[in-house]
């Protein structure tokens, strides 16, 4: 960035700045003429959409923080004050609350895009890993943000999730006390969650910067999963993809504002409008929808692992559930090193396509299981789905590496696009 030859700008003011700090040259190179494969479909909008959602969350969040009081006795009422008395407070809060959901929607689609078209494969491994890191940071941020209104779900969600760490052998209870800053979820916990909830988005911004940097080193993948070879395979980012991204963003925003303005509590839980009470546990503690698949994996491990026919237990159920939940995310990090098949795009991998689409369907089933009480039919179903989640990474992908045939790929993006256009016009 910034080194090398620089072309002069005609505007003297821009030229004055650029010759001292070549920020305009950089923007021109990375967002103006940046060569981008010309065959993107709408799945390629979601990176930009996620970026916009992050900005919306930071701006509304900073404004909300000006009215919010991070104290156990005042937090709930300060949120109600934002809803009733602060000018436009209701709108800012509903945009922030629903914005979290739509940020996750954008990111989940973005992750699916990466998996479907093999965007994690060589040479984009670090790009992918940074992306999973962003996802993990988002989960931590969203969890802490949900605690701040200090309603019943805030309080009991925080209790259940922080208690997960007590499953760690030997040091678990000390870790939980350290997280709480006391002997239960209380004011100290709320206060630090607020501090961290304010900090984390800026950490996310930093990792997003690295993510985009890595993207601009290796360039974008595309639906065919083959690298652009000549100039005919690419288009300058502006105006082609600035326009396409703007169009996709507008469509996404329409759905978002329908939720934020017309059904702002559809994705929330009514119990969070009851102030936190450490003496009364709600009948069903449910996390926000975007955590449900992982919550289902956590609860699917209902059995101890030990020596059969003895009372020796290596891994009690509680620890097993925690390990499975964190393991399910660890596998996402490892994906570029598990899937070694030379073809990227699922368009040319019929076997992988079936496995991946089943994986997505399975994730939805896990999500449904996570929202149901852990009893009856839902327990074996979530156990089966958890099994498939892990089998996809640990069994199916290694088998496909060896067995799935390598199909012929188009010789260039340009050729494939022309052939498709010809077919369409014929």
């Amino acid at each position, binding site marked *: 960035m910034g080194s090398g030859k620089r072309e002069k700008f005609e505007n003297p003011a821009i030229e004055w700045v650029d010759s001292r700090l070549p920020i305009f040259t950089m923007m021109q190179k990375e967002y103006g003429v940046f060569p981008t494969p010309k065959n993107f479909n709408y799945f390629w909008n979601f990176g930009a959409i996620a970026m916009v959602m992050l900005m919306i969350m930071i701006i509304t969040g900073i404004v909300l923080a000006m009215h919010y009081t991070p104290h156990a006795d005042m937090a709930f009422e300060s949120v109600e004050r934002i809803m009733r008395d602060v000018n436009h407070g209701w709108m800012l809060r509903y945009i922030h609350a629903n914005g979290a959901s739509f940020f996750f929607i954008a990111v989940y689609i973005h992750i699916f895009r990466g998996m479907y078209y093999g965007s994690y494969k060589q040479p984009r491994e670090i790009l992918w890993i940074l992306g999973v890191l962003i996802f993990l940071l988002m989960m931590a941020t969203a969890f802490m943000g949900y605690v701040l209104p200090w309603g019943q779900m805030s309080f*009991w969600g925080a*209790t*259940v999730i922080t*208690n*997960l760490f007590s499953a760690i052998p030997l040091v678990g209870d000390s870790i939980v*006390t*350290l*997280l*709480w*800053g*006391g*002997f*239960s*979820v*209380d004011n*100290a916990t709320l206060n*630090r969650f607020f501090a961290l909830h304010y900090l984390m988005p800026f950490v996310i911004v930093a990792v997003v910067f690295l993510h985009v940097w890595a993207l601009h080193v290796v360039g974008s993948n595309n639906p065919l999963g083959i690298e652009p070879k000549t100039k005919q395979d690419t288009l300058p980012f502006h105006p082609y993809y600035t326009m396409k991204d703007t169009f996709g963003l507008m469509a996404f925003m329409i759905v978002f504002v329908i939720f934020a303005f017309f059904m702002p509590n559809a994705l929330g839980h009514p119990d969070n409008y009851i102030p936190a009470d*450490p*003496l*009364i*546990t709600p*009948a*069903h*503690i449910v996390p926000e929808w975007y955590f449900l698949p992982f919550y289902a994996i956590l*609860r699917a491990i*209902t059995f101890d692992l030990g020596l059969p026919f003895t009372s020796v237990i290596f891994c*009690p*159920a*509680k620890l097993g559930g925690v390990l499975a939940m964190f393991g399910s995310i660890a596998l996402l990090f490892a994906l570029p090193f598990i899937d070694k098949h030379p073809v990227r795009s699922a368009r040319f991998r019929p076997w992988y396509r079936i496995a991946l689409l089943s994986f997505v369907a399975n994730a939805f089933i896990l999500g449904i299981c996570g929202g149901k009480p*852990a*009893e009856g039919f839902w327990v074996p179903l979530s156990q089966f789905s958890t099994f498939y989640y892990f089998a996809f990474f640990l069994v199916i992908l290694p088998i496909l590496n060896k067995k799935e045939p390598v199909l012929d790929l188009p010789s260039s993006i340009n050729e494939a696009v022309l052939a498709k256009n010809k077919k369409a016009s014929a």
Partner: protein
Amino acid sequence: MSDSKKPDDKKEENGETRRDFLYLTAAAFGAVGAGSVAWPLVDQMNPAADTLALSTTEVNVSDIAEGQSKTVMWRGKPVFIKHRTPAEIEEAKKDDTAELRDPQTDAERVKEGHEKWLVTVGICTHLGCVPLGQKDSDVKGEYEGWFCPCHGSHYDTSGRIRKGPAPKNLEVPEYTFINDTTIKIG
């Protein structure tokens, strides 16, 4: 010119130099220094002095009738104080020999001479919910003690886990009888 090297670089008999020693000691001091800076930053998250100061609480139990319970707050957590009936004590003792997940006798869970008082932390050992069973109208579970509605754990009249996902018995906090009607918890 038989000895042109600086004394520092002179190889000692085992192949190590004085410089290696200096590197190691410098790194060790650096690590200790970094650790002593990091520790306060981590430890500040632990319970503060005023939180610890609230860690005992005294309860007058004379107003709890036989068969009734009282919930008090201790360290931000509910504590169940149950005045057990002779039948409940009998039941608890009988089950000492039953198959228990977290084997403990009833005698280990109460104070000698005060068997009618069962004092437990009212937090399910599974994931921290508050079990039902403190009020007469509550569901008490299959063992007539407490029942956790979150994931269905059943506790008996000694607060021991009998059925469901919880791994341990309801915790018995540290407490002493100051006199026959006052308990100091913590």
